[in-house]
Every structure is written in structure tokens, then in C-alpha cells.
């Protein structure tokens, strides 16, 4: 079964410091991995994805993620955190099913709090 784990409920970072939000996955076949961000009372916004190719994926708002096949991880990173990055972050995997690779399976989410 496909699954995604986000081991941290919350990550606290000082503004200007680097941040990492962790994600590990378990899939059969090729992993198609995504990061989304959710601000309060808002929908999910796409940040970046890994399909194939370079293990370091660059996305929106200065975020990047590193795909590590041996560790089955896809950690989200940013070199310098902003207070406005404070939000709920979801890692997701595109899961195969009878209908194809349709649904996203989400991790439990990690709340990022960036302090001034």
C-alpha cells in the first residue's frame, strides 16, 4: 500500500535560518511525490514535485526538495525561512489504482512556525 509519513507535527524555525520539513514514503513502483502548502482557511497550493530526473527539485517561493531513493525520503527545504512561510505543509504521493495514477495520498501534515 502507498503511504507517506511526516514524522514531525510541528517544526519551529527562526526567521533567516534554514528549514527542513521531513517526509518519507512507501510505494510500489515509481514514486511520484509532491509538496503542498495550506494556509488557514485556504486550499492547498502546489509547491513542487518529483517525477524523475535530478534528485534536487526546485519549486515555488524558494522551496526545494531532495529525493533520496535509498532512504525513501523527500524532505522539503528552504535556505532562509520567512515568517510568511508559517503554514501547514503536506507531502503527498500519487498512488496507482485500478483507474490509473489518480489519487494523491497525503501525509498527516507538518505545521511550520517561523519566529521573527
Amino acid at each position, binding site marked *: 500500500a502507498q503511504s507517506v509519513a511526516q514524522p514531525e507535527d510541528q517544526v519551529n524555525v527562526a526567521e533567516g535560518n534554514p528549514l527542513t520539513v521531513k517526509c518519507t514514503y512507501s510505494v510500489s513502483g515509481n514514486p511520484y511525490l509532491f509538496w503542498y502548502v495550506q494556509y488557514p482557511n485556504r486550499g492547498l497550493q502546489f509547491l513542487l514535485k518529483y517525477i524523475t530526473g535530478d534528485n534536487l527539485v526546485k519549486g515555488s517561493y524558494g522551496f526545494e526538495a531532495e529525493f533520496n531513493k535509498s532512504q525513501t525520503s523527500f524532505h522539503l527545504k528552504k535556505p532562509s525561512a520567512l515568517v510568511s512561510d508559517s503554514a501547514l505543509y503536506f507531502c503527498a504521493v500519487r498512488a496507482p489504482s485500478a483507474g490509473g495514477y489518480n489519487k494523491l495520498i*497525503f501525509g498527516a501534515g507538518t505545521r511550520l512556525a517561523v519566529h521573527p
Partner: protein
Amino acid sequence: AAGVIQSPRHLIKEKRETATLKCYPIPRHDTVYWYQQGPGQDPQFLISFYEKMQSDKGSIPDRFSAQQFSDYHSELNMSSLELGDSALYFCASSPPGGTYNEQFFGPGTRLTVL
């Protein structure tokens, strides 16, 4: 840029009532997905449609049904509402190309069942 539109944004219903949620995908997107996000939970996949045909089914209760119309908009119909149906319901769409494309989410419909 056009985004996914969902209506209504908020809905309050009584137990055992019915509700209809609407979703208008981004123009030229051919696939629509529905997700349910309970309080403090991650989004759970309900159902998806590709070119107006159901393409995948997740943890959607039998009391719920959905369809995609000729203009690609989709409706989620919910009957015999229960307190546990209170949640944020997201619609997402993706462009042609299938597997590799990200899903673009709407702002959600917050359903409260009293």
C-alpha cells in the same frame, strides 16, 4: 490565472438533509478530484473523473455520489448527512497528461452539519 472554483464556500445543514457541492475546474483541465479534510486531518481522496467518466474511487460513502458534466464541472451530492460529514471538501483539477501532472486545488467548501 484562472483557478479552481468551488461553490458554495460555506454550507450549514441539518442531520439527514442533503447537500450539493459544485466544482468548476481550470479551463482545459480534463480531470477532477474530490477530497475530504476533517478537522485537523489530512485530505482524504473521495472520487475522481476523467473526461466525464469516473476514473477512481476512494473512501466515498454510499450516501455520496458525484458526476462530471459536459462542461467539465463536477458536483458532489451528499444525502442523509451525518455529523461526521462536517469537513472541508476540496475539489482539484489537473491538465491533460495524466500521471505526472500536479493537481490544482480549489479553496474548498466548508460543510457544517448540525
